[in-house]
């Protein structure tokens, strides 16, 4: 059983759902507080959805400078698996652990729906248990999910296999190249706007596709230990 940290910032909403998803996947959730300076030796970190610090200034901009993020950034640069979901994705972009940025949806409304995605890369810590090109459904709910980056960065992401998920059946928010999630060059940091922690249980989920995120992590951690 692995210990997976879930960071709670003031204004995080889905931290408890993420902790619950960790437990449903058979791991020990470890609550991490934004103002603490220790990751408590966890094997991986999830930055959950919500509105950290009220999304003041820009989504994720203030959370990025919280004490726990200094540790997360240092860990990520040393290979620690980090998953950023929705607001967590925004925090990762503001931290420059992932390239690009998220801006207000082009449709100017909050979008909440079961979102079809294509898995574009299985070469990451969080997606190796998917099939390349697999079509999955993950809950999407955000107001500022438009992924943007300069043309050179988009070209590099596409060329280096760093686009991890792409929206199918219509782009919900104006993201460039229909990008729903990206990874860093090393593949240990993944960010996406949809919420895999909401896709863990038959009763409340449109699919169980969130489970493969944890199955992927397990493979990675088992290989590291082995």
């Amino acid at each position, binding site marked *: 059983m692995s210990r997976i940290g879930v960071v709670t910032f003031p204004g995080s909403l889905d931290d408890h759902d993420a902790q619950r998803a960790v437990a449903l996947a058979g791991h020990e959730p470890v609550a991490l507080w934004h103002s603490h300076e220790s990751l408590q030796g966890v094997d991986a970190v999830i930055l959950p959805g919500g509105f950290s610090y009220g999304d003041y200034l820009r989504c994720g901009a203030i959370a990025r400078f919280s004490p726990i993020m200094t540790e997360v950034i240092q860990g990520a640069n040393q290979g620690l698996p980090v998953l950023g979901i929705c607001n967590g994705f925004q925090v990762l972009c503001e931290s420059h652990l992932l390239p*690009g*940025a998220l801006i207000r949806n082009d449709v*100017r409304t909050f979008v909440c729906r079961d979102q079809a995605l294509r898995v574009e890369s299985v070469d990451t810590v969080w997606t190796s248990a998917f099939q390349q090109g697999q079509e999955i459904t993950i809950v999407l709910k955000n107001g500022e999910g438009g992924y943007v980056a300069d043309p050179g960065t988009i070209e590099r992401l596409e060329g280096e296999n760093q686009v991890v998920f792409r929206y199918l059946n219509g782009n919900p928010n*104006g993201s460039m190249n229909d990008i729903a999630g990206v990874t860093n060059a090393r593949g240990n940091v993944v960010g996406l706007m949809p919420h895999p922690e909401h896709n863990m249980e038959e009763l409340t989920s449109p699919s169980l596709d969130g489970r493969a995120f944890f199955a992927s992590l397990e493979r990675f951690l088992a290989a590291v230990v082995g």
Partner: protein
Amino acid sequence: MARVIVDVMPKPEILDPQGKAVTGALKRLGFEGLTVRQGKRFEVDIEGELTDERVAQVREAAEKLLANTVIEAFDVRVEQ
């Protein structure tokens, strides 16, 4: 007390949904031919004497926190 103004604007190539919404509302109100892009203005009051060093500090703050230079451009000026 000296005041330094930091203007932050979305880069021209970045979509500005808020500006588009305001542009649409102005048109509905009868204001023809006005296109708006929306940004942010920060008023930074500085304790003590205003030196080039202090202005440079504000510039650094803008670069680090006030603007996200992936999507935004900023301008720093001393209020006269």
